[in-house]
C-alpha cells in the first residue's frame, strides 16, 4: 500500500541553533512543548502557518525544514520504468 509522509529537520535545526529547547521553540511559534515533540517524531503534521513560523525561527525556507515524501508515487515510477 503506498504511504506518504511528512518528515522534518526540526530536531537538527534546534541542535544547530545552540540546542534550543522544545519549550523555547514552542513559545516562539505558539505551541506547547508536547506538540513540538510530536512534530519532531512525525506524529503530528502542523498547519501551514505554523510550519512557516517554525522555518522562520530558524531562518530557513519551508522546504528546507519540512519534506514531503510521496513514497507511493516514487514506487509507482520505479515499477513503470523499464
Amino acid at each position, binding site marked *: 500500500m503506498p504511504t506518504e509522509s511528512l518528515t522534518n529537520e526540526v530536531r537538527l535545526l534546534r541542535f544547530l541553533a545552540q540546542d534550543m529547547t522544545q519549550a523555547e521553540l514552542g513559545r516562539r511559534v505558539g505551541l506547547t512543548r508536547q506538540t513540538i515533540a510530536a512534530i519532531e517524531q512525525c*506524529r503530528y*503534521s502542523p498547519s501551514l502557518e505554523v510550519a512557516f513560523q517554525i522555518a522562520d525561527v530558524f531562518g530557513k525556507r519551508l522546504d528546507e525544514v519540512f519534506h514531503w515524501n510521496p513514497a507511493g508515487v516514487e514506487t509507482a515510477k520505479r515499477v513503470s520504468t523499464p
Partner: protein
Amino acid sequence: MSSLEKRAWLTLWSQCPPYLVYFLIQAVWPNWLTTFQQRIACLAVVAGVHAIAYVAGLLWMKRRERGEPLLLDERDRAIDARATRTAYFVMLTGMIVVGVVMPFSDSGWKLTNTALFAIVLAETVRYALIVAGYRGTPRLAH
C-alpha cells in the same frame, strides 16, 4: 503530558467508576431500588461522587501547575475536535434510541437510565479518544 490529556484522564477516572457501579446495579438488580426517592438518591450519590472526585482532581492539578493558564494549541484543538466529532455520533445514536425507539416499548426509569447511559458513554468515548490521540495513533494532521 499536556493539560488537556491530564484533564481527559481525570474525567475518565472520576466518571467511569461511579457510573459503572450505578449501571451495574440497574442492570443486575433492577428492582433493588423501588421508590422514586430511593432511585433519585442513588443517582444523586453517584453524580456527587463524580463531581467531588473531579473537582478534587482539578484542584490538585491546578496546585501542581502553579496557576499556569491552560494553554491549548492547534494539535490539542485538532485532537479535541476529532474526539468530539465521534462522541457526537455516539450521543446522537443514544438519543435516537431513547427518544424515537424506546417510547413505544418502555417508560419511566428505563428511559432515564438509557439516556444517562448514552450521555456517559459519549463522554467516555470523547475523553478516551482524546487520550488515544495523544498516544500517537493514528497519525494526526492539522
